[in-house]
């Protein structure tokens, strides 16, 4: 019996003395391996009398169980410290910078065009495009600006060589020629005849001979046009009030409609938004000042007629607004020329994330 207790204490001693998993495995083999001490005791059972075997067998099994439990416990302890050691060895300096990655930006003009699209899209408008290089009929004549009209000079137009048939070619001075191109389209005329309502916005590039601190030879405009049988100036006002409040995100933004003159609208209105100046900073919203932001009016009967529609039947409104200008106002961008300079510092500062959702 003393043999049993010696083996027990030796085995447990070996297990607890194992300093690592390799030593523990050696201890396991020494006790439970083919030639192990406890295995040796098992082997003696066969030679015993049944009575004795039963009694001794139970004790040996108990010992075996006890050693196995000790092995398991020791293994778990050793495993945990091995992992701990490994983790300690794998420590990094998290203050190091991440791998170089570029952060892209989108230009405010495109951002504002997207915003225009969302707001006017909500009001049932669709997007229309037209060429930057126009003939003078679409840019002027169709819009009730006949040859020799002072407005043709007023607008300081860029000219390209005339076409073979002598038609003068210009860089469009406004996005309004797309009004004519759209109204002249057979599909649109069919839609209108069927009682439909034409609602388009035309964001795009426009050109005038002008280059100083507040003018650039190229700039961006958005044209709006609504044509049907019943749209009146109240709708023009409603549409622009709704737009300006949504765009500038000022719910009670006051708007002022003043009579003005454009050859292609009658009556014509210029539109101001309320604002105030404090310490040289502009704040858009109810205030003691007005800021002109766009020109508008009811489409001139001559324009409707020039575009192949009967002004006795059809009417509607049009407006034109500077995209660069409203971008400057909304986002506090001080200088128009910088829009076109592609200075990375400017692009990064005033630009928008590609992933920023347009509301």
């Amino acid at each position, binding site marked *: 019996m003393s043999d049993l207790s010696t083996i027990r204490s030796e085995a447990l001693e070996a297990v607890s003395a194992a300093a690592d998993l390799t030593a523990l495995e050696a201890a396991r083999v020494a006790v439970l391996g083919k030639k192990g001490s406890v295995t040796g005791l098992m082997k003696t059972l066969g030679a015993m009398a049944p009575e004795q075997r039963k009694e001794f067998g139970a004790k040996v099994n108990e010992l075996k169980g006890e050693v196995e439990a000790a092995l398991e416990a020791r293994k778990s302890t050793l495993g945990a410290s091995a992992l701990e050691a490994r983790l300690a060895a794998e420590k990094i300096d998290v203050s190091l910078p991440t791998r170089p990655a570029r952060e892209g930006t989108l230009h405010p003009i495109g951002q504002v065009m997207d915003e225009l699209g969302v707001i006017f*899209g909500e*009001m*049932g408008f669709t997007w229309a495009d037209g060429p930057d290089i126009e003939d003078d009929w679409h840019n002027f004549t169709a819009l009730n600006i006949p040859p020799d009209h*002072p407005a043709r000079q007023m607008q300081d137009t860029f000219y390209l060589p005339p076409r073979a048939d002598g038609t003068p070619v210009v860089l469009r001075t406004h996005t309004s020629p797309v009004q004519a191109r759209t109204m002249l389209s057979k599909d649109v005329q069919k839609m209108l005849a069927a009682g439909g309502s034409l609602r388009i916005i035309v964001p795009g590039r426009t050109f005038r001979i002008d280059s100083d601190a507040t003018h650039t030879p190229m700039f961006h405009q958005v044209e709006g046009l609504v044509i049907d049988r019943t749209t009146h*100036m109240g709708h023009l006002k409603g549409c622009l009030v709704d737009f300006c409040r949504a765009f500038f995100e000022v719910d009670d933004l006051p708007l002022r409609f*003043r*009579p003005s003159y454009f050859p292609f609208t009658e009556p014509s209105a210029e539109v101001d938004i309320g604002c105030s100046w404090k310490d040289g900073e502009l704040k858009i919203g109810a205030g003691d000042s007005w800021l002109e932001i766009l020109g508008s009016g009811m489409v001139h009967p001559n324009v409707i007629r020039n575009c192949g529609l009967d002004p006795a039947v059809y009417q509607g409104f049009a407006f034109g607004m500077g995209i660069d200008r409203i971008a400057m106002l909304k986002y506090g961008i001080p200088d128009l020329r910088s829009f076109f300079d592609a200075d990375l510092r400017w692009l990064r500062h005033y630009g928008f994330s590609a992933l920023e959702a347009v509301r």
Partner: protein
Amino acid sequence: MKFTLSWLKEHLDTKATLAEVRDTLTMLGLEVEGITNPAEALKGFVVGYVVEAIQHPNADRLRVCKVDTGTGTIVQVVCGAPNARAGMKGIFAPPGSYIPGTDLHLKVGKIRGEESNGMLCSSRELQLGDDHSGIIDLAPEAVIGQPAAEALGLDDAVIEIKVTPNRGDCLGVHGIARDLAAAGLGTLKLVKADAVEGGYASPIKWTHGYEAKPDSPCPIVVGRHFRGIKNGPSPDWLQRRLKAIGLRPISALVDITNLVTFDLNRPLHVFDAGKLAGDLVMRQAREGEQILALDGKTYTLDPTISVIADSKGVHGVGGIMGGEDTGVRDDTTEVFLEAAYFQPIGIAASGRKLGILSDARYRNERGIDPESCLWGAEVATRLILELCGGEASEITRSGVMPNWQRSFTLRPDRVKTLTGIDVPGADTASILGKLGFKVDGQGPWTAAVPSWRPDIVGEADLVEEVTRVWGFDKIPTTSLPRLSATSKPVRDPIQRRVPQARRALGARGMNEAVTWSFLPYKKAERFGGGQPDLRLLNSIDATLDTMRPSILPNLIEAATRNEARGLSDPALFEVGPQYKDASPTGQRTVAAGLRHNMAVPRNWAGPARTVDAFDAKADALAVLASIGAPVENMSAQAGAPDWYHPGRSGAIKLGDRVMAHFGELHPEITAAADLKGPVAAFEVFLDAPPPPKAKATKARPKLVLSAFQPVERDFAFLVDAAIEAEKIARAARNADKALIAGARVFDLYAGKGVPEGKKSIAIAVTLQPVERTLTDAEIEAVSTKIVAAVVKATGAVLRG
């Protein structure tokens, strides 16, 4: 257009305040651009009476004056003006005043030992004129202690309004008053313009050089001779009025013509009758005829230009400017007055051609009241006789009155249907009446347009008149009715490609720029452009004279600018137009971009690397993928325009159609742009990929997922160096379409161990079993097929 409040009140009987006038003008469409009052700058300055002026004991040129400023105490002022004397009245500035002419604040001080408590001012010190020869010497009637602005007649607000091109009638104060009266701000006063009887027949007659008709360049001209007159400075009230709006008084006769121009929008001209030879003729200039005009410049004329001539030569450019030689002088005693009507278009064209800006041109090209030839001459006659004395002849005239009479019908509901406002019928008629229309009927109304409103050409104009006078603020605010419960996408699928491309490139770390649509001709030429029909006829300067054939030159220039500012490794893109011809279809929408120098900068975690063609290829493919183009069916091949590096560039094609170009820029171009290091650039033609088919269903094809593990096998081939990698991958992919899911090049090697002129390319082929796991024999069979296909397509040899 500038005028003063008191001037306005000569035409408008009103109790309205300045603020009411200001707000009403703006809401009538006569936008107030500014209001200034010279009295503001003269606050605190008063009329001072010089009680005594004695020689300064220590300075020859100074006097010590005792001045009564009306406060009860007499102050001592040291004054250097030679005209300072006892008994005079001048403008006294107390200590603390700001003297605008010298930009100084006055302090009490001692001048050469004598105390000075303020100063007596000259015109220049108060910025009222150029005179600095002495202090202002007021008339004896001036009241001691009266505010200076009052004493000088300067307490009068100057209002500046913006007059739109259609409202020529408001380039005269009377027209402005008429609008205000219509808007309820008072009563319009009539202009006294009845005929002044002439005392003798005019020795100079008007004739036409052509048969005058209503649409002739100058249909009608009126004149009158004056004798025994005395020119010279005009009276104070007239000088003050002209000065207030920024005009320089010249002489009574010239000032009268300026007054009538600004008061009644009736440009006039006076000739020195003594310098004219015989009758005056209104005719078109002869080719090459010359005139020395009143601005001192000589102009060469042509037959499109109206002139006024006598038997010796040309003495005026009709409606624009008179001639120097026949202009009036201070000693002129006989004059001839001209009042004419010209076709506005002709004046605009002549004025532009000659480059003359004058108050007469400005008004005549906008269209003045043709009837004013007649009544304007009478108004001027009265003023000349009043201010210069003498005697007036009978009127002489030539030509016919243009046909300005016309009427339009205004339907009773038209104001409402066009503007949404309900204006009562009586008010509609009354507004038009006050604006000078002769209105007939109870609605519909027939409105006869007054002679001074050439801009009214239809019913819509009548609606505008009624609406703007009734008030634009009364237009209702009516949201547009919805066309459908939910809104449709604002852009169509092709238009949507622009924001898609922008977002794709922004997400790839590039910065979006917007650059000019034009560029210098030399650059256009280098990038395949510069065709004659794309060169501007009137560019601002040579750097912006040609429409861009490509966006890249502008981005290259932007990269150079950024590098020059120390902003390294720019990665810029732009989505915008480029132009291949001037037709409406010659414009394409392109997403172009470039990356300069380092793709991966120095960093602790790995190697740095410069950009190359594959960065550009990745950008181009990303754009194509973002717009939904079938990238999987496209192939990249050598062949790009010559602004790219010939060996390091290519085209991405769908069949034969080019979708994009990409590659390193030609070293010659980067060198010219002063860019060190490579530039990887791309141009994706957003309109090139075919539009998505308008399918009835948005449903995707069924997704088939295999239950069996895919198998990957690697192959290395030895091929001629010229063989394109994609050819090998494609041959492998097509070797067994049912089983092969993909083939990818993962290694490229040339050098030691590979024969000269050859390269080794390794591909990984993915086999995707569909029905059951592949046996070794089946894998072996497919492998054999792959090798055979590659060998056949490329002449490659499988490496052992």
